[in-house]
C-alpha cells in the first residue's frame, strides 16, 4: 500500500487556481450546503490553491495520474479520529478505486474548495467530518467514475451503460475489455462531468462498512509520521515563549543578561505581551527562557480567582435566559406539580493534546510559510496574512498530522504568536510551547452552571425547565451560531433532549467568565448538557421510585426508538440489574448527540476514602451507516477514557489571575492502570452516518456519576467528582 499522509519534506505544494484545473472544478459539487450558516459564511474566497498530481483532476478531491495512482485530497484534518481513512473510503467506494493503492494528502487552505458543508468554513470539529462530507464526497467519487467510464466507452465506441468499474479499471462487460484508470486519465479530463452523478445503492458498498486498516497508522509506529512539531526546514531555529501568566498582562521589563550568555541562545524577542528565546535547539531556548528575569505588568485581571468565577456564574444563572426551545406550557406544569430542582457545575478544562502547541514559520518580505497541524486551515492562512500584511496568495500553509486536536487546534492563538515571533527572526523558526505554557495559555472549556426544574406525573416527567448558563464560544468563534441570546452549541443536546416531555423549556444565559478565554473542547456543548440532564434524570427516577433504565425507556420508546433500542442492548450486555458487591454500582446515561444514538452503562466501586475505581463501561451505539466500524469502536473506547479523565480529575482553577495547574503532575490524565474494561456494541443501521469522535467523552461522566449514585446514594452535582464528598467529609 502506498500511503502519503503528509509531505515528507516541508516543500510547498504546487499551486494553481481553480480555473486552471478544468471545467469540472467550479461545478455543482461545491454547492448544495446543508447548513443554514453555510450560505452566509461561504465563500470568503482564498487564493483557491489546489494540489496538482495528475492529468485527471475532476474536482477538489480526486487526482489520477497516467500511472493510475489515485491521490485523494483530504478536506479535514487528521488528528487521530481516522478521518483520512473514512473520507478515502467514501470517495474510493463511489470511484471504484482500488483502496490499497490510494494515497491521501492534506488539503491546502481554502474555505471555498474545502469548506465543511455544515460550517461553511474549512474546519474539523463537532464530530461532523463524515456526516458533513458524506454526500459531497460520494458525489465527487461517482462523478469522476462516470467520467472515466464515459472516456472508456468513447474509446471502445460502446454505450457507457454497458460498462462497469471496479478496482481502478473500467470494464466492458460484454467483451471483457478493460482499461485502467491511469490509461484513461487524459481522456477523462476532457469529459464533462455528469449533471447528477448516480450514487451507489448502499447494498452494493464494497468498502463502506468494512473494518479497513487505517491509512495513517503504519508511519505512526516507526517514527516516520510527521507532526507540526517535527518540521525541520533548512536553517530552522528553535524558540519557546512565555506569555504573561496573568491573563491579559503585558511585558513591563526584561533582564536578559543571564540568558544571553547561555551557549546556543541566539536571540531574545520581547513583544508587548510575550517573550521568546530563540536558540540552536529547544534546550537552549528553554534554559534561556528560564534564565530571563521578566517583570510583568499584570493588568486588570490579577485579582481573578475561581471563587469569583463561581460566584459570578451562579449569580448570572439566577436571571431568566433567552428561550431556546419551548414545548407545551412548562411554566404552568412546573407550578401545578411538586417541582424538584437541582443545579450542576462543570469546571474549566485545558485540552492538553500530547503534542504541545507549536508552529514553525518563515516570514519573509515577499511571502510566508507556515508549518503546523491545524483544524482550521483557511483561518490559519488568514491570520498569517493579517499578522504579516501579506496577501493570502503569499501565505503557504503546510498542514501536518495533528498530535491530538480535541478543539485546541480550532484556535489560531499559538499560530499568531509564532508569526509575531517569526517576524523578528531572520530565517525559519519553530516555536514550541513548553507543557506549562500549553496548559496555562489555552482556550479553556468554559465553566457551566445548569439549573433544571421538573415535575413528575404518573411516573413520568411532566414539566421541565433547563437553564444553561455559560460562555458563548460561538459568539467569538462563529458569530452566526449565536443569535437572539442563544448559543447553538451551548444548547446542543438540551433543546433536542431525547425524552417525551409534554411541557419543556430550555433557556440560555450567556455569561462570560472574567479574563479566561474559552474554546471548544472535545464533546462541546453536549458535554455539559448530557451530564446535567442525565444526572438529573437519575435523581427523578429515584424520586419516582423507578429503575433508572425503565424510567428512561418509558419516555424514549415513542419519541426516540433508536435510542431506546441502544439502551436495551446496553442494559443486556452490561448485566444491568444483576447483583453487585457493596459500594459498587451501575449507572446509565443516554444521549442523542452529534446525530448518534448512544447508551452507556458504567460500573464503579467507591471506597471509604472516596476513591472511585471504574471497573467496566459498556456502550451500545447506533451511528447510522458505520463507514469504518473499527474506527468507530476505537473512537468510543478513547472518548470514554477522555471523558473518564475529565470526570475523575479534570479541573483548571484560577488564582491571582493565573492558572494553577501546569503539567501532567497536577493536571492529571487517566493512565492504563486505571483504565476499565470497555465494551462497545455497534447497532447495524441503514440510516445516514452520525458523528462519533466526541460521543464517548460526552457519555462517560454522567454514566460514572450515576454509578456512584447507585453505589453510595450520593447525588454528585459537579465535576470532577469530589473525593472529600464521597468520603463523607464534605456535603454535596
Amino acid at each position, binding site marked *: 500500500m502506498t500511503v502519503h499522509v503528509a509531505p515528507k519534506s516541508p516543500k510547498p505544494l504546487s499551486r494553481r487556481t481553480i480555473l486552471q484545473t478544468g471545467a469540472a472544478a467550479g461545478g455543482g459539487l461545491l454547492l448544495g450546503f446543508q447548513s443554514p450558516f453555510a450560505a452566509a459564511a461561504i465563500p470568503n474566497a482564498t487564493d483557491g490553491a489546489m494540489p496538482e498530481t495528475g492529468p485527471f483532476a475532476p474536482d477538489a478531491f480526486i487526482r489520477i495520474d497516467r500511472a493510475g495512482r489515485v491521490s485523494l485530497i483530504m478536506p479535514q484534518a487528521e488528528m487521530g479520529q481516522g478521518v483520512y481513512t473514512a473520507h478515502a473510503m467514501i470517495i474510493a467506494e463511489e470511484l471504484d478505486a482500488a483502496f490499497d493503492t490510494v494515497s491521501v494528502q492534506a488539503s491546502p487552505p481554502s474555505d471555498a474548495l474545502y469548506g465543511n458543508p455544515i460550517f461553511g468554513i474549512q474546519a474539523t470539529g463537532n464530530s461532523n467530518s463524515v456526516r458533513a462530507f458524506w454526500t459531497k464526497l460520494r458525489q465527487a467519487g461517482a462523478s469522476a467514475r462516470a467520467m472515466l467510464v464515459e472516456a472508456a466507452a468513447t474509446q471502445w465506441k460502446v454505450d457507457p451503460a454497458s460498462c462497469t468499474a471496479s478496482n481502478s479499471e473500467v470494464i466492458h462487460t460484454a467483451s471483457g475489455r478493460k482499461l485502467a484508470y491511469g490509461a484513461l486519465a487524459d481522456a477523462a479530463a476532457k469529459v464533462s462531468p455528469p449533471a447528477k452523478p448516480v450514487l451507489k445503492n448502499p447494498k452494493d458498498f464494497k468498502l463502506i462498512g468494512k473494518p479497513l486498516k487505517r491509512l495513517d497508522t503504519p508511519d505512526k509506529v516507526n517514527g516516520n509520521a510527521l507532526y507540526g512539531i517535527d518540521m525541520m526546514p533548512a536553517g530552522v531555529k528553535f524558540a519557546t515563549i512565555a506569555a504573561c501568566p496573568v491573563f491579559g498582562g503585558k511585558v513591563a521589563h526584561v533582564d536578559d543578561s543571564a540568558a544571553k550568555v547561555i551557549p546556543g541562545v541566539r536571540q531574545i524577542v520581547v513583544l508587548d505581551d510575550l517573550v521568546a528565546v530563540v536558540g540552536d535547539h529547544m534546550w537552549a531556548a528553554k534554559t534561556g527562557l528560564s534564565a530571563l528575569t521578566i517583570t510583568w505588568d499584570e493588568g486588570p485581571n490579577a485579582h481573578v480567582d475561581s471563587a469569583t468565577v463561581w460566584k459570578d456564574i451562579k449569580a448570572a444563572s439566577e436571571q431568566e435566559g433567552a428561550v431556546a426551545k419551548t414545548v407545551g406550557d412548562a411554566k404552568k406544569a412546573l407550578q401545578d406539580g411538586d417541582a424538584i430542582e437541582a443545579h450542576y457545575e462543570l469546571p474549566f478544562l485545558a485540552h492538553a493534546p500530547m503534542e504541545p502547541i507549536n508552529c514553525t514559520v518563515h516570514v519573509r518580505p515577499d511571502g510566508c510559510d507556515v508549518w503546523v497541524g491545524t483544524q482550521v486551515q483557511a483561518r490559519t492562512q488568514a491570520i498569517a496574512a493579517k499578522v504579516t500584511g501579506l496577501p493570502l496568495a503569499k501565505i503557504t500553509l503546510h498542514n501536518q498530522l495533528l498530535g491530538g486536536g480535541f478543539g485546541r487546534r480550532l484556535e489560531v492563538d499559538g499560530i499568531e504568536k509564532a508569526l509575531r515571533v517569526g517576524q523578528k527572526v531572520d530565517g525559519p523558526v519553530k516555536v514550541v510551547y513548553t*507543557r506549562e505554557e500549553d496548559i496555562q495559555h489555552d482556550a479553556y472549556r468554559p465553566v457551566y452552571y445548569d439549573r433544571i426544574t421538573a415535575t413528575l406525573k404518573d411516573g413520568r416527567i411532566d414539566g421541565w425547565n433547563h437553564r444553561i448558563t455559560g460562555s458563548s464560544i460561538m459568539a467569538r468563534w462563529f458569530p452566526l451560531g449565536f443569535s437572539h441570546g442563544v448559543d447553538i452549541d451551548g444548547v446542543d443536546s438540551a433543546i433536542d433532549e431525547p425524552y417525551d416531555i409534554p411541557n419543556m423549556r430550555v433557556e440560555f444565559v450567556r455569561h462570560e467568565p472574567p479574563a479566561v478565554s474559552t474554546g471548544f473542547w472535545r464533546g462541546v456543548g453536549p458535554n455539559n448538557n448530557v451530564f446535567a440532564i442525565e444526572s438529573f434524570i437519575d435523581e427523578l427516577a429515584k424520586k419516582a421510585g423507578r429503575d433508572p433504565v425503565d424510567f428512561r425507556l418509558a419516555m424514549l420508546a415513542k419519541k426516540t426508538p433508536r435510542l431506546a433500542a441502544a439502551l436495551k442492548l446496553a442494559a443486556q450486555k452490561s448485566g444491568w440489574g444483576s447483583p453487585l458487591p457493596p459500594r459498587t454500582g451501575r449507572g446509565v446515561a443516554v444521549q442523542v448527540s452529534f446525530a448518534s444514538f448512544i447508551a452507556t452503562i458504567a460500573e464503579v466501586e467507591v471506597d471509604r476514602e472516596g476513591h472511585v475505581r471504574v471497573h467496566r463501561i459498556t456502550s451500545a451505539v447506533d451511528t447510522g451507516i458505520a463507514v469504518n466500524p473499527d474506527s468507530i469502536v476505537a473512537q468510543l473506547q478513547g472518548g470514554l477514557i477522555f471523558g473518564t479523565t475529565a470526570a475523575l480529575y479534570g479541573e483548571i482553577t484560577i488564582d491571582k489571575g493565573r492558572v494553577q495547574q501546569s503539567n*501532567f503532575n497536577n493536571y492529571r490524565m487517566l493512565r492504563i492502570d486505571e483504565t476499565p474494561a470497555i465494551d462497545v456494541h455497534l447497532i447495524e443501521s441503514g440510516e445516514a452516518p452520525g458523528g462519533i469522535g466526541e460521543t464517548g467523552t460526552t457519555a462517560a461522566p454522567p454514566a460514572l456519576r450515576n454509578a456512584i449514585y447507585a453505589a453510595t446514594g450520593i447525588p454528585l452535582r459537579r465535576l470532577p467528582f469530589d473525593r472529600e464528598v464521597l468520603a463523607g467529609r464534605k456535603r454535596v
Partner: protein
Amino acid sequence: MTKLQINGQVREVDVPDDMPLLWVLRDVVGLTGTKFGCGIAQCGACTVHLDGKAVRSCFLPVGEIGNRAITTIEAVGETSVGAEVQKAWLDLEVVQCGYCQSGQIMSAAALLATTPHPDDSDIDAAMAGNICRCGTYVRIRAAIKKAAGAQQA
C-alpha cells in the same frame, strides 16, 4: 564533543552535558520520532532505550549516557521484539493521533524483552508512565498480549 551510540551508529554532538537526550535526538541529530510531551518525565512520549531499558529522554542529560547504546523508535523494529510490537500495534489498530505511540511502543518493547509473558499487573507497572490522551489503553494492553503470544510462537 559528546560521543553517543544511537541506533548502532556513533554520533558526535557538540552540546552541553546537561542537555536532555530528547533535544539532542530531535533538534541536533534530526530523529524526530521521539516526542516531546511534558519535559518532566511524567508522560513517557520521549521514551527510548538505553541498553535495552526504557528511559525518559526528556530527563536524561547526555553527559550521563557514556557508552550505553541508545535505541529510538526509528530502529526498534530491527529487534524481533520491537518488530512484533509494531506489528501487533497495526494488527489491532491501536493508534489514533499517534503522538504518544513512539513512547508506548518503546515501553512495551522494553517490557517484553525482560518479561516475555507479562500479566496485567506487569503491563500496568511498565506502561503506567505513558500517557495517551486519545485513550488507546484498551488496545495497547491487547496488543502487548498479542505481541507476547507471537514471541512465544
